[in-house]
């Protein structure tokens, strides 16, 4: 039961993050550019593809489909996001986080902490498994 809650929470966070980015791809592309970490065209490509990865991960986590694989990818993403926001804060960039909304407070170490929280959630799901009420029960039960 506990892992079901964790799974829904993590999935919900990813869904919320994905929807805004899918709605406004151009402003998300600008945001990625503001981080000044990637070459322009790689950044644009990432901005157009990444939201769909978040959407698929969010949906799959909520439904409990391939939960542990989702958790693995979510852990990877949160590490990347955490490092990106930490480096933006370290370099003193005055950029919005771009996590959920295009207009937000400037990115700081707090965002890195939140990403560590996400990482912890993902690792818990990876270790424990999907919990109850997951599609995995139908597809992969022994």
């Amino acid at each position, binding site marked *: 039961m506990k892992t079901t809650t964790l799974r829904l929470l993590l999935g919900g966070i990813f869904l919320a993050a994905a929807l805004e980015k899918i709605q406004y791809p151009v402003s998300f592309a600008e945001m990625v550019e503001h981080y000044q970490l990637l070459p322009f*065209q790689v950044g*644009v490509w990432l901005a157009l*593809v990444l939201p*769909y*990865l978040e959407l698929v991960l969010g949906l799959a986590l909520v439904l409990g489909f391939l939960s542990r694989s989702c958790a693995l990818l979510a852990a990877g993403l949160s590490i990347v996001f955490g490092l990106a926001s930490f480096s933006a804060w370290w370099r003193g960039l005055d950029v919005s986080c771009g996590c959920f909304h295009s207009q937000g407070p400037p990115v700081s170490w707090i965002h890195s902490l939140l990403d560590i929280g996400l990482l912890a959630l993902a690792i818990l799901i990876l270790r424990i498994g999907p919990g109850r009420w997951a599609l995995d029960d139908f597809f992969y039960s022994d």
Partner: protein
Amino acid sequence: MKPRDFRHLLAKPSAGVVSRSRGNDDANAAFPTPVALLFSVFADLVFGRILRAAPESTVKTGWRDVVAGAWTLLSISLGLALFVNHARGLPIQPWRALPSATSITSLDLDSARERGAILIDTRSPEEYKTRHLSGALNLPYQEVVEGRRPPSRRGRYVFYCSPGCGRALKVAQLAAAEGYHEVFVLDQRAYVELYP
């Protein structure tokens, strides 16, 4: 660091435009949606199978399924992203779709008038007096060099000069580099009206 303009990501070439730069549709044509979806399914089948068939000694059973599942999710996401972006007219191959900063699109006369563009004659005042396109304003190239500019950055301008002269393109590139939002040059075929 100079801020970049991202609006062209959403720009769709309209009818009657002879484009020098490749629009998103052109760039995407080489990589259509079915190919994108096939690619994603193919990637999943091949790599997923390799991962799942990996011998026990190299990857532990539990982890092997987790990694293979992660690969499946990545493939689904990539396929979905390509499909939706293609349908929305966004570039799925941005490295091909992005025009260089100085590439200028040419417009024919009809679509220029249809879109309410302001025609700008970059020839000398004498040439302008002899004959000019109806509704065109005169902004001689010499005066542009001396610092005169079209009035508003938000206006839609179509520059022209005489056949084979490069001044219209030079002025347009200058204006685009200075942040004018919509800058075109007149398609050379429209010069028939000017020099019958």
